[in-house]
């Protein structure tokens, strides 16, 4: 490995890529405001910022997906105008997106072929694919179909596809968001190797510790503007976060001496077949959650978390009433409305389209989950005043910022809508709250408000089940953490004993794999 110190402008040389005053305007909104950035060969350059800071806009501009409104880009010192991504690829710019663009029912090789502009035969391409993946330690079987692969393997396809074009400059958008800590370590080895070969990497991430470990330079964006370019190793995670947010983040405080009471949510040997062919089968899931307690469920996305949420909420019901027990009542066979009447509340991962109807007003979205258990409906008629009151109360209690009293859900920013969705449930004062990814895609300020609200609700005696892919979040708020892998749930660990290494191993399925004898999963 190369000496990791070289950073910043190399004396005398020209940067590989340089942007000068790069600006992107959407109507009155400046997504990127006059951004100057320099990327040098053999550099891993971090791009940091909160959601909405303009990171995606910047990299999409560099990759030719959007046209800048103003400013210019220089490639190896020469002015560069890109009409589209294929031009960017022709110059040697590659990109790996956060959301994979893969066809589930095609093989690895077919997917790669679809993404390449080249004219080589399918056979040659497959051979080259195997060769590239072996050289970089990213093993892939070109003949496997994508739906059989884990998320980490799917990401490998995207990376190999980009590497097959032999890029001088590779952009990675939050590559570790979907990986276990161990998988992330493997990725870092690959990235260091690419750097040693003289390539440049632009690395987008929220994970500050990771950036400090991996990157030579960091550029921080906030509100569309560049705040600073610095050496991340010379900064602390707190100082980087302060630059991203523009203020100190309030620390979340758990009430001292929280007492646990009786079990309020019990799951007994829950199993469920998936309702779509690529879904995950839930197997032998058992847990017990007392009042005043927060149980975290960690795991890589796609290991059955969505299926578990559907089974707990009653979006899918079980034949056996005893599989889910809410506050002492067998509820496995009950609908979501009946479970709400027992005092349960639910917050799904997807805010728009699942938690709310995007094109309906907030008051109507308050009615969506509130119609069963509060005074919002009388003899089949809607009490509009009551629904509006819920909106006002949520707005006040959770600082929901919006343009008018009762706007459409889709017009709120992600963080504000999430505060409303969580607030809507907490205001009903639930006995049991099941929440999936409470702060996914939410800015740091809103995330702190939401986590605090969950802690306060638990302190009030509710039982809370939090599913999250953010280990730091779980460690911060959960009393115990269990891990989901291939539709099974591990024994929960007390948070104090749950090191990242232990959790990471569980997330990769290692300790569970020994128990699994009959069920050979996707191998």
């Amino acid at each position, binding site marked *: 490995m190369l000496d990791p110190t070289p950073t910043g402008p190399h004396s005398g040389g020209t940067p590989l890529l340089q942007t000068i005053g790069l600006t992107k305007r959407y109507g009155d909104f400046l997504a990127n405001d006059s951004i100057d950035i320099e990327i040098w060969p053999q550099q891993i350059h971090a791009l940091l910022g909160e959601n909405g800071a303009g990171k995606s806009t910047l990299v999409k501009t560099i990759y030719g997906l959007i046209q800048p409104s103003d400013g210019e880009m220089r490639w190896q010192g020469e002015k560069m105008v890109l009409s589209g991504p294929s031009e960017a690829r022709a110059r040697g710019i590659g990109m790996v997106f956060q959301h994979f663009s893969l066809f589930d029912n095609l093989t690895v090789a077919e997917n790669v072929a679809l993404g390449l502009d080249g004219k080589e035969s399918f056979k040659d391409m497959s051979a080259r694919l195997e060769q590239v993946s072996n050289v970089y330690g990213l093993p892939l079987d070109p003949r496997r179909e994508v739906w059989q692969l884990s998320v980490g393997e799917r990401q490998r396809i995207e990376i190999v596809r980009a590497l097959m074009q032999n890029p001088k400059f590779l952009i990675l958008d939050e590559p570790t968001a979907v990986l276990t800590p161990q998988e992330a370590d493997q990725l870092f080895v690959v990235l260091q190797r690419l750097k040693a070969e003289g390539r440049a990497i632009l690395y987008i991430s929220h994970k500050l510790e990771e950036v400090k470990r991996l990157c030579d330079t960091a550029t921080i964006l906030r509100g569309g503007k560049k705040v600073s370019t610095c050496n991340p190793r010379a900064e602390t995670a707190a100082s980087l976060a302060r630059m991203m947010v523009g203020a100190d983040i309030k620390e979340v405080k758990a009430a001292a001496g929280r007492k646990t009471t009786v079990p309020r949510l019990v799951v007994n040997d829950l199993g469920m077949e998936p309702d779509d062919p690529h879904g995950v089968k839930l197997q032998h899931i058992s847990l017990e959650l007392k009042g005043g307690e927060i149980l975290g469920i960690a795991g890589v996305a796609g290991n059955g978390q969505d299926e578990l949420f559907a089974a707990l909420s*009653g979006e899918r019901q079980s034949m056996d009433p005893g599989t889910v027990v809410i506050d002492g009542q067998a509820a496995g066979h009950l609908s979501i409305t009946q479970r709400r009447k027992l005092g349960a509340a639910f917050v799904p991962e997807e805010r728009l389209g699942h938690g709310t109807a995007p094109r309906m007003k907030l008051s109507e979205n308050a009615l969506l*989950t509130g119609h069963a258990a509060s005074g919002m409906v009388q003899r089949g008629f809607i009490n509009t005043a009551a629904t509006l009151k819920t909106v006002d109360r949520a707005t006040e209690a959770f600082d929901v910022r919006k343009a008018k009293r009762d706007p459409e859900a889709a017009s709120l920013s992600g963080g504000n809508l999430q505060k409303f969705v969580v607030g809507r449930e907490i205001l009903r004062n639930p006995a049991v709250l099941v929440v999936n990814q409470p702060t996914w895609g939410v800015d740091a300020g809103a995330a702190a408000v939401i986590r605090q609200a969950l802690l306060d609700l638990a302190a009030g005696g509710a039982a809370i089940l939090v599913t999250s892919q953010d280990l730091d979040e779980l460690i911060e708020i959960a009393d115990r953490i269990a891990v989901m892998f291939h539709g099974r749930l591990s024994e929960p660990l007390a948070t104090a004993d749950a090191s990242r290494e232990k959790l990471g191993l569980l997330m990769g399925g290692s300790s569970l794999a020994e128990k699994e004898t009959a069920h050979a999963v996707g191998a």
Partner: protein
Amino acid sequence: MQLVLEKRAERSNIIALVSPLIAIGLTIVTMSILFAILGKNPISALGVYFIDPLTDSYSLQEIAVKAAPLVMIAIGLSLCYLANVWNIGAEGQFLIGAVAGSWLAVETHGTDAGPWVLPAMLLLAAAGGALYALIPAICRVRFGASEILTSLMLVYVADLFLDYLVRGPWRDPAGFNFPTTAEFDPVATMPILIQGGRLHLGAIIALVVVAAAAVLLGRTIKGFEIRVVGAAPRAARFGGFNSNQLVLLTFAISGALAGLAGIIEVAGPVGHLQPGFSPGYGFTAIIVAFLGRLNPVGILIAGLFLALTFIGGEQAQIAMKIPLDVTKVFQGILLFYVLACDSLILYRFRLIFPSRQVHRGTA
């Protein structure tokens, strides 16, 4: 310079109201061109179509008579469409309703049955339409069959069934072999509202249906359920609403309303059951539903407007020898423009001028 469609942050309520008007305007412009091509003076043709029917009491009553079934059917369809359920077979439900109601009229013909006959006919028609509409609904819920296809195909089944009845068992013995039932008895016909006119009770029923639908959609949890299932199915499931139940319910309501409209038409202006008594109300009502923005009051206005095109079309045929089919062309163009203009509710046009990217074409 480039013209692009850009997504709006929030749906525009102004455009939602104006869009049907823009569509009507564009339709009139297109029709003028069409009239000119046909060699007719566009101004006088449009006058005959849209102005003349509004100037005499006979035509005004006739507009209301024609609007009543259109509005009733369209209200039912709007409930389906709001819930993302695509009932295209209202014409079939309309015919079956007419058949079911006429059964009683034929059975009691010539007896001294009392005034209970008409209400019973209305109930039978609504039940018949609802049951007929439940066929595609059940096929969709149980087997996942596309209700668009099945409901449409059942239109032709209903049409032929009606044809069989009036040529066979129900044919009027004194009807000189014409395929029609006997004229209905007075107790089996819709009461006339204005002495010597044609306006009948059906118009009042249509207004009651509009009011009921407005309350249902705006004020009740069931109406909310219908809207949310259509607007965001996954959120509706999360809210605890069962979309399969709603498919059955909306199909049943719209079938019942179409069936009711069917018997009102037969027992009203027509007076007996015969093949081809419907000028395609069940299909025209689809246009009414969308032109009225799937909103009850909007549908009332749209129903009156499309009834006007029927009357205007007849008058244009008489006065200017414009083929009656031009009315259908008009209705088709109108639906096309309505759907096109609706995209402006969520999107807006924007002119993009090239900024300083003049030196393109490198690379």
